Each structure stands twice: as structure tokens, then as C-alpha cells.
């Protein structure tokens, strides 16, 4: 009982905590709820539609849940849907996209991180000019460069063929234009400005004394990069990876221009399935195909959300 009186006298300090259902909270959460609804509703419609059969879709109530759940549209979208003469579904496009994505992401991040590291820590004569030119590249609309790149890819392919034939008369023609490797090169180059900026800013924020200490300790350019800088910069690598994965996976323009039908990436194939004008529009298959295509970036985001925020905060803000 003594304790109780003491507690009553001293009591809780500080201002009274606000109620959960205060008007401010209601407005904030209400707005958020409406916005969420706005963004989630189309996704809901897509999922629901993709699980319905065509007869059910024709009934026309698009918000209604499927009466009879069927996964057939998904199977069809993945492995049976036709684009032109081939009827392999999205699966081929998926693997094409993977073969484009993996090397593009790895190569572009590898080069850009070294670029950023060199520009941040090993200033050389003209490094600022070099950096400015590189960043300038980020502001040029890339539609301007489409045709020149076609020529560059064609000519350099021929150049490589000529070079190979110096050693082996019978070497087959080497093509960059229309091949996956050509597209990988294009993606790598177009990722360079923004990734280099990202990495440079991150490495600039690493204390300079750390770099100096490593030099006094006898570490060279690569020693410092691999053993000091790399272990410290996981967040920015995750950010770069997300940027590249989503950017390259969602790319349509380069995919459709620099490849040919056998090597079309998933997005192009999706377009061809959804926009085919022959026959019945299979809305359920289209929805399933679209969801399948969007799955990869979505998974990447969910898997690395926390690191992504940390990396953005660390690298992108500071100029």
C-alpha cells in the first residue's frame, strides 16, 4: 500500500500521450488507406482475372473473386501462349531475359564501382572533366543514340570477325547486332553514368583518412578496393543491383531493337502476347503473363528492402 501512494504522488511525467484515434491520425491513416487501395486495386483485378476461366470473365464482373479457381492461364502464359509462329509461351523470353540480365548487372556494377572508386579516391589530372562528361551522358535522351548504336554494333561485329579471321580463315562471322552479347554491352554502357555517380558519391563519403591509412599500410589500388572499400559498401551494391535489375528487366526499347525474335527478352515477348490482334483476347492469360514478367523486380525489392533504404540514404543524397 505504501508503494501505491508513492506511485500516485510521483505519477507519470511528461505530456499525456496522444490518443490513437486522434483526428490527425485518422486523416493520415485514412489518406494512406485510400492511396493503398488506389494502387492495389489494379493488382487485385489482375490476380483475380488471371485465376478465372474465359467464360467467367465474359460475365463481366471484374472485381468479383473467381468462382472456380484455375491455374491454367498461368501455365498457358508460361509455356503455351503463341507469339507469331512460335508457341513456347513466356518461358523462352524469361530465359533470354535472365541471360541478358545476369551478365549486364554484374559487368556494369563491376565497372561502375571501380570507376566510382577511382574518381573518388584516386583523383588524376582531368578526372573531374571525365566525371562531368560521364554524368552528362545521364541527361541525354537515349532515343537519340539508338541508330548510332546500331551502326556501332554492326561495325564492331564486323571488326571482330575480321580480327578472328586473321588467325583462322574459317572463323564464322561474329555478330554483336541482334545478339544477346550486343544487348549486354548496350545495357552496361547505359548503366554507367548513373551507377558511377552512385558509387563515386558513396566512396567520397568514406573517410579519406581510412584510404590514407591503407596506403601507408602498403595496399595498392586493387588492394584498397577489394579489402577496404568493398567490405564497407554492401548497401550501395544492393542499391546498384536493384536499379540495374529493374531497369534491365523492364527494358523494352533496347530489347526490341538490338535483338531478333529468337532472342527477344521477356518484356518484348509479353508485348507480343498481349498485343496480338488475331483470335480471341485471352484476358486471363494476358494478366498471368504480365504478373509473371513483373515478378522478378518485385521479388528483388521485397528481398532487399531494408538494405535498399540504407544504401539510398548513404550514397545518393550527398553530392
Amino acid at each position: 500500500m505504501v508503494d501505491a501512494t508513492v506511485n500516485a504522488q510521483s505519477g507519470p511525467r511528461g505530456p499525456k500521450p496522444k490518443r490513437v484515434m486522434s483526428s490527425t491520425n485518422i486523416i493520415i491513416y485514412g489518406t494512406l488507406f485510400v492511396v493503398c487501395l488506389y494502387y492495389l486495386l489494379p493488382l487485385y483485378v489482375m490476380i483475380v482475372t488471371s485465376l478465372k476461366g474465359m467464360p467467367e470473365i465474359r460475365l463481366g464482373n471484374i472485381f468479383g473473386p473467381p468462382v472456380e479457381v484455375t491455374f491454367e492461364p498461368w501455365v498457358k502464359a508460361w509455356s503455351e501462349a503463341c507469339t507469331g509462329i512460335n508457341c513456347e509461351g513466356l518461358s523462352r523470353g524469361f530465359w533470354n531475359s535472365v541471360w541478358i540480365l545476369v551478365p549486364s548487372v554484374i559487368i556494369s556494377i563491376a565497372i561502375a564501382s571501380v570507376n566510382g572508386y577511382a574518381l573518388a579516391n584516386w583523383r588524376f589530372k582531368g578526372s573531374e572533366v571525365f566525371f562531368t562528361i560521364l554524368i552528362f551522358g545521364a541527361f541525354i535522351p537515349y532515343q537519340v543514340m539508338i541508330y548510332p548504336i546500331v551502326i556501332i554494333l554492326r561495325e564492331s561485329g564486323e571488326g571482330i570477325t575480321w580480327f578472328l579471321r586473321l588467325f583462322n580463315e574459317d572463323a564464322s562471322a561474329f555478330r554483336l547486332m541482334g545478339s544477346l552479347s550486343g544487348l549486354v554491352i548496350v545495357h552496361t554502357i547505359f548503366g554507367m553514368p548513373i551507377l558511377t555517380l552512385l558509387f563515386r558519391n558513396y566512396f567520397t563519403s568514406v573517410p579519406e583518412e581510412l584510404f590514407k591509412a591503407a596506403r601507408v599500410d602498403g595496399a595498392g589500388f586493387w588492394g584498397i578496393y577489394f579489402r577496404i572499400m568493398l567490405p564497407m559498401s554492401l548497401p550501395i551494391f544492393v542499391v546498384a543491383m536493384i536499379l540495374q535489375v529493374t531497369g534491365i528487366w523492364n527494358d523494352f526499347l533496347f530489347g526490341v531493337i538490338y535483338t531478333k525474335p529468337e532472342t527477344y527478352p521477356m518484356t518484348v515477348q509479353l508485348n507480343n502476347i498481349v498485343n496480338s490482334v488475331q483470335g480471341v483476347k485471352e484476358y486471363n492469360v494476358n494478366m498471368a503473363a504480365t504478373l509473371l514478367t513483373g515478378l522478378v523486380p518485385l521479388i528483388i525489392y521485397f528481398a532487399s528492402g531494408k538494405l535498399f533504404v540504407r544504401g539510398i540514404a548513404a550514397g545518393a543524397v550527398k553530392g
Partner: protein
Amino acid sequence: MTYSVEIKQLDLAFGSVKVLQGLDLNINEGEFLVLLGSSGCGKSTLLNCIAGLLEITDGQIYIKGENVTWAEPSERGIGMVFQSYALYPQMTVKGNLSFGLKNAKVPKDEIEKRVARAAEILQIGPLLDRKPGALSGGQRQRVAIGRALVRDVDVFLFDEPLSNLDAKLRVDLRVELKRLHNQLENTMIYVTHDQIEAMTLADRIAIMKGGQIMQLASPDEIYNRPRNLYVADFIGSPSMNFIEGHLEGGNFKVDDMVLPMDGYEFVAPQTADRPATIGIRPEHVVTGELVRNTPLKFSVDIDLVEPMGSDTLVYAQLGRHPFRIRMDGQARVNVGETIEIGVDPSRASLFDKATEDRL
């Protein structure tokens, strides 16, 4: 004899900005040299040049008689300790200590031996498996010193190593650093803006200003016989009192007072009459009974009293010149009081008013 570090006609320019110009500096074997100056004076820049972290524009640097002007930092036989400690955050203390040795391809058992020795000297044995993030500021700085220690270098370079520590720890580590120097007997070059650190640690102090060395001398010499007005003003806290006047026939005249400078050691035996500035350290002023024995006596009016425990700092007016006096902590003086003070001319400093050099 060869010097431990020898700098000849060092120039450093960033574009058109000349940071260091024609700088010469010789540092003896086993000497503790402190580069002291306010921020922007080029002291850290000079240290970075010695370390090889900055490419110099012109001149030569020798370490142990070897021309290392274009050598890599790791090839110069130097170890460096930074203000921010600069420990590699992803490595353990042991990893931090052995990083340089691994780069130099030192055999494994030798690395173990050296790390153990450094850990013993710096008393960081129990911390070897921790990451720097789990260490206190003082422990981090010890590890940073250890990193230089394990490499068995000829010259230690310190770039304001104590500035990030709190006041009490700074004093402790300062003492430890001095002990370490006595034990290792390496050459040490130490950059600081803290004059107490400079006075207590240094065998010689180089006071820098605007990329040039103003005075290079022992702490005692710098304190008692500053070569110019800048050095006199920079060293000592509270700083020296300066009064402008005239030097005439061996007497210093200011307003209607005449101060005979008997006992003052002039730099040149015959010093012509000229406008001059006299400098008197607040702690060289005597008060009370002792005034009777001093050759120069004045009376001053007290403006402000700052008791500091060990001392009492008195702000007063000597004629129309402000005058600071450091009195005993027990001194009882009041604002508005007029007291008698005495000055010994042999402990004062005279400077040419135009050139600001010591007379």
C-alpha cells in the same frame, strides 16, 4: 651525420595556390618534433608530404639518408596515426594491426610475434579480437598507434592524434605517448594545434604560418625567446601583453613612461633606435611584496578578475593599454582596485614594429 628526415626546398602547389614554399627542415634521429600552428598553416599538408600521401611540386625529401621524394608511402619507413583513428571497421583489432604486414608479405609467425609485442606495449592484448566499433576512443587511438608500431618503422607521423579525445583522456594519452617515445626512441613528427601538447611532448617545435616555418627551436627557447611577434602571440595562454612604443638609447618609451631595458639580451649587440613593441607574459609579472625587487614598477587598475583555482587571471589597464596579469590562485584582488606590479626586463621581449622580428 645523416638526419632522420631531411626536407630540402619543398614546394607544394594546388593549381596556382602555393601551400608550401621553399621549406627546409632537418629532423634528428630519435627526435620528437612538433609541427604547431593554427588551422590552414600547412602543418598537416607538410606531414602528408613526408608520408608521401601528397605529391609534391618541387624539392626533395630524404628519410634515413635515402631520397624518398617519389617513393610510395609504404616504402618510406613511416607509420602514420590519424586524428579520426582511421581503423578498418570490418576488421578486428588484430586484422587492423596485421593488415600492413600482410601487404608487405611478412611471414605469419613473424606477424604473430610483432602483433603480440605491440599489444603488450600498448596494453591492448584483451581487445585483439574485437571490432573497432566496440572500442572506446582511447582504445581506438591505441590500436591506431599499434598499427604504426607493428610495422617497425623509422619515423612515426602523428596527425592531431589526440584531438578527438575528451580532455582527461587526452592528458593521459599524452603522457603515454611521451613514455612510448622514451621507450622506442624513434623519430616522431607530431602535428597539433594545441600548444600544451606541443610544449610537453616536443624536443623541438616548428611553429608554422602560411606554409612557412616561423621558428624552429626547443619549447623553452620558443617560450622565452620568441623570434617574432607571431610566435610570441601564438605561444602562451593567456597570450603575451603587447605595448607599442619606441626604443631609444636602450630604453623603451611608451607614452610618458621610460622603461630602462637593462639586462635584456638584444639579438644584435648594437640596436638602433626605432619604433618597437614590448611583449610581457602575464605570468612574468610580479605582484605584492616581490615588486620591491624588480627594476620596473607600474601601477595598474583592475578591470576584471577571473579566478581559475590554480591561478587568478586579472585584466587591468596600464595607462591606456589593456594588460593581463596571472596571479596566484590565493591572490585576493577586487575590480576597481589599483595595484603595484613589477616586470623584469630580462624576461620581456622586444620586437621591431615594422618587421615584427625580435630585437
